[in-house]
C-alpha cells in the first residue's frame, strides 16, 4: 500500500471503541497517520474527536482496540510512558511558575544541567516568539502568549507526537489567525507528527495535511482538505465542510437526477441506485451560476443579498427547481453587473457535472 516516497506510518489506531456508560463515544475507529503529518480531528461537539485524542494520550484509555506508535504497541501504557506533548484548551499552565519555568518544567525533572535548560528554553521561546516574556507569570500574559508558552512546554522534551486539543478556541478571531500561522510554521520547521482537535472547519482546512472528519463516534471521511471539500463522501461531510445547498431529487434511469422534474447531470458522488429512488443533491454556493434575466437558465428571484467582501452571497427563490432558498456566491464584478438587490430577477444555472448526489438522509446538524 505504501508508495515508495511516502513516509512510514507513525501512529496506527485499530478498532478503537470507547463508551461512557451506555453512550458510545467511539465506535470501532481505525486510522493511520504518517510520520510528520499534520492531521486535524474535525467534527461537531460530542462527535468523539477529543475522546480519540485522549485515548491516544492514554488519559482516557479506550475500552477496546489497539494503538501503535512508531511500531510500539502503546495500548496499555499509562500516559507517562507514552511519547507525546500536549496543549489543552485551558493551556493548564502552572500559575505559580514563570513562562521560563513552565517551558523548562519537564527538563528540570530530568536532571538536565541548568545552563542546558536555559539554552533549550530560550531556543523554544524564540521559536514561538516569546523571548521577551520569559520572566513573566501566566497571569501577566495575554491569552495568545499563554497559548504559546503551552506550545513551547509541550515541545520541550522533543516528543514524537504533538497533540493539540482545541488550542485556539479560547482566543479572539485575530489572535487565532496569527497563532494558526504560527502553529503551521512550528510544524514546518520541526516536522513533528501533529494531531489537532477542532470544531472549526476553517482551522482544519487551512492547517491540515489530512482531515479526519468525525460524527457520532465514527469517522465519516479521511482526506486532504481539497478532497473533503470537493468530493465529500456523505451528506454530513458536504454539510459540515464548507457551505452547501441541499435539494431533494430522484434518480433517473439515464444516470441523471430529477429535481422537481428538471433533469440535472451530476458530477462525482453519483451512486448506482434504483430509478426513482429519492436522493438529495448537494450544490456548493459557488457552483450556482447567475446570469441576467433572460440570458438562459432557471428564472429566479433574489430574496436576500449579503456583502461578504470578496464576494456577494445571494439567496434566491427558484420556482422551476421547487426551491425557495438557494444560496449562490457571486464575484463582486458580476454582482455589480447583475444589479443585485432584493426582489431583482435573474437567471440561475447549474452547470453539468458539478452537483453531488447522496442517499436521502437529512444532513446532520452542521455548524
Amino acid at each position, binding site marked *: 500500500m505504501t508508495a515508495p516516497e511516502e513516509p512510514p506510518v507513525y501512529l496506527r489506531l485499530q478498532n478503537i471503541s470507547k463508551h461512557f456508560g451506555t453512550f458510545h463515544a467511539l*465506535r*470501532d475507529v481505525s486510522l493511520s497517520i504518517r510520520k510528520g503529518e499534520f492531521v486535524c480531528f474535525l467534527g461537531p461537539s460530542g462527535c468523539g474527536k477529543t475522546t480519540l485524542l485522549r485515548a491516544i494520550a492514554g488519559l482516557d*484509555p479506550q*475500552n*477496546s482496540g489497539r494503538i501503535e506508535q512508531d511500531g510500539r504497541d502503546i495500548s496499555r501504557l499509562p500516559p*507517562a510512558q507514552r511519547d507525546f506533548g500536549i496543549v489543552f484548551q485551558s493551556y493548564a499552565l502552572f*500559575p505559580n*511558575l514563570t513562562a521560563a519555568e513552565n517551558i523548562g518544567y519537564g527538563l528540570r*525533572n530530568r536532571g538536565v544541567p541548568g545552563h542546558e535548560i536555559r539554552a533549550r528554553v530560550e531556543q523554544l521561546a524564540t521559536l514561538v516568539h516569546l523571548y521577551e516574556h520569559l520572566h513573566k507569570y501566566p497571569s501577566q500574559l495575554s491569552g495568545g502568549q499563554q497559548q504559546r508558552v503551552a506550545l513551547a512546554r509541550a515541545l*520541550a522534551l522533543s516528543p514524537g507526537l504533538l497533540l493539540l486539543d482545541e488550542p485556539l478556541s479560547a482566543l479572539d478571531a485575530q489572535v487565532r489567525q496569527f497563532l494558526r500561522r504560527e502553529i503551521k510554521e512550528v510544524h514546518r520547521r520541526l516536522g513533528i507528527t501533529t494531531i489537532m482537535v477542532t470544531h472549526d472547519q476553517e482551522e482544519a482546512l487551512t492547517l491540515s495535511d489530512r482531515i479526519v472528519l468525525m460524527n457520532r463516534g465514527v469517522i465519516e471521511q479521511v482526506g486532504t482538505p481539497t478532497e473533503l471539500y470537493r468530493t465529500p463522501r456523505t451528506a454530513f461531510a458536504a454539510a459540515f465542510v464548507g457551505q452547501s445547498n441541499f435539494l431533494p431529487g430522484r434518480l433517473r434511469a439515464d444516470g441523471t437526477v430529477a429535481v422537481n422534474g428538471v433533469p440535472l447531470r451530476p458530477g462525482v458522488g453519483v451512486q448506482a441506485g434504483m430509478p426513482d429512488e429519492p436522493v438529495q443533491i448537494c450544490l456548493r454556493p459557488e457552483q450556482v451560476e447567475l446570469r441576467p434575466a433572460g440570458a438562459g437558465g432557471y428564472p429566479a428571484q433574489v430574496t436576500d443579498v449579503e456583502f461578504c467582501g470578496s464576494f456577494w452571497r445571494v439567496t434566491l427563490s427558484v420556482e422551476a427547481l421547487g426551491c425557495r432558498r438557494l444560496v449562490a456566491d457571486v464575484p463582486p464584478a458580476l454582482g455589480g453587473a447583475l444589479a443585485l438587490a432584493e426582489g431583482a430577477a435573474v437567471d440561475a444555472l447549474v452547470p453539468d457535472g458539478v452537483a453531488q448526489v447522496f442517499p436521502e438522509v437529512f444532513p446532520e446538524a452542521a455548524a
Partner: protein
Amino acid sequence: MNQSVRVPSLAPAARTPRRLRLSMGREDWIMAGGILAVGVFLIVAVALPLLALFVKAFENRAGEFVGLANFAAYFSTPSLTQSIWNSLFVASASTVITVTLGFVFAYGLTRTCMPLRGVLRALAVTPILSPSMLPAISLVYLFGNKGFAKGLLFGNSIYGPIGIIMGEVYYTFPHVLLILVTALSMADARLYEAADALGTSRWRTFWTVTLPGVRYGLVSAAVVAFTLALTDFGVAKVVGGRFNVLATDVYKQVIGQKNFPMGAVVGLVLLAPALLSFLVTRHVQKRQKAQLSARSVLLTPQPQKGRDLVFFAVCSVIALAIATMLGTSAFASFIKLWPYDLTLTLTNYDFSLVDSSGWTSYTNSLVMASSVAVIGTAVVFGGAYLVEKGRSLPLLRHAISVLALLPLAVPGLVLGIAYIFFFNHPANPLGFLMGTMAILVINTLAHYYTVAHLSASTILKQVDGEYEAVSASLKVPFWRTFALVTVPVCLPTILDILVYLFATALTTASSLIFLYTPDTKTASVAVISIDDAGNIASAAAMAMVIVYTSAAVRGLDLLVRRFGLARFQRWRQR
C-alpha cells in the same frame, strides 16, 4: 450487545481484551497506595467505631445479643426519655434566639452603614475562641448564687434550662453569624433597583426580596445552631444542674454508671436528630447553587441615619453582652474570691493546686492540637487530592468522599463512646492505642475531618484538571507537580485548614472526656474536671488559657497571611 459491528477494514488486529486496562506504573502504585491508606484511616477512625456503637446498643452488659431490649428499657424509663424533650426544648429555644439575634447582627453588618462595623464584628466572633464551658462558667459568676446580676432572673435559677439556653446562644452565635453574613452579602443590587423602580415599600421589599434571598442561609444557620446546641456537652455539664439533657446522659451512663449498652442507646438517640439535620443541610446546599451570577451587581448599602442608629444600638448591646461573657471569665480568673475579695491574683493559674495534672494538661493540649493540625492537614489535603485527581480505584475514591462527610453528622460525644466500644474491644488489635495521645489525635481529626475535607476539595476542584495530564506528558511524576504546583497554588486554603484543625482541637472536650487518661488529659478536659471539683475560678483560668492560645494562633495566622504568604503569592498579581 446491540452495538453495530462493522467489518474491520484493516488486517485483523491481535485479539484485544474486552475491558482494556492500563498497566500500572510505579506512580500508579504509589497513588493507589495513598488512596488505600486514606480509605483505611477513615474506615478505622470513623466507620468501624460507629458500627461498634450500633452493635453495642443491641447487646447486654455481658456482650450478648438482646435485640431491642435496651431500647425498650430506655423508653420505659421516664427519667431518661425526659431528657429527649429537655434537649429538644433547649436546642429549639436557643436556635430561635440565636438565629434572630444573628440575623439582626448580620443585617447590621452587611446592609447598613452603622459605625464601628469592624469592631462589632470582631467582638461578635470571639466566642469561637473558647471552649463551650467558658460561657457556662461566666453565667455562674454573673447569675449564680453569688452572682452580680442574679436579680435579673427574678428568683429563677441559672442552673437549668435558662443557663443552658443562654450558654448555647453565646456558643453558637459566631457560627450562625458567619453563615448569615455570607448569605446576606450575596445580594443582587439589580433586584432592589427593580423593586425601587416599581415603587415597592421597604417593608414589602424586605419580605419579597431580602428574606427569600437568604432563606437557604437561614435554614443552614438554624440547622447548625440546633445541632451544636443539641450535641454540646460543656454548657450543660457546668450549668445544667438537675436538668438532664441527652449529652449529659451519655456521660452519666458511660462514665458514671459504666452502663455501656445504655450509653450506646442514648448515643444513637442523640445521633438521630444530628443525622437528620445533616441531611437537611446537604439538601439545602444542593439547591443553593448560583444565587449570584457573573452579571449580578453587588449591593452596597447607602447611609440612612435613623436605621443605621437603631442597628448600631441593637448590635452594640449584643456585642457588649458577648464581651461581658468573655470579660467575666477573664476577670474572675484573676480574682481571689468572687465576690468577697476582689484583689487581683495569679493563684488561679497555678493549676497544680487544683488538679494533679497541673499545667501538663495545657502542654498536652498543645501537643495534641499541633499533631492534629500538622498530621491532619497532610492527611486531609493529600486525601482530598487523591480523591479529586486520582485515576485508579474509583470505587474506593467514591467511598472516601462519602466517609469524609459522615463525621459532620456525628456529635463528638457519640464518636467518643464509639471509640471506647471499638478500641476497647478485646479482639481489636488496635487496642494498644487506648490511653495514648495517638487515640486523642485520631479521634479529634476524625471528628473535624469533614469541614477540612470540604474546603480542601473545593479548592482542588478549582485547580485545572489537566495539570496531572501535562506532567505525565512531561514525564514528571505526579507528586512532584503536587509539591511544586498544587500545594503552592492552594497554600491559603491549606493554612485555613491548619488553623481550623488547631483551634478546634484546642477547644473541643466532648469526645476526649471519654478517652483521656491522667497522662494525656487536655486543657479543655481539665476545665471540666476542675469545675467538677468545685474550683470554678481555676476552671475559668484554664478556659482563659485556651482562649489566649487560640487568639494568639489566629493573630499569628493574620500576620503570616499579611507578610509571609505575600512573598509566595506574587504570581497572583496581574
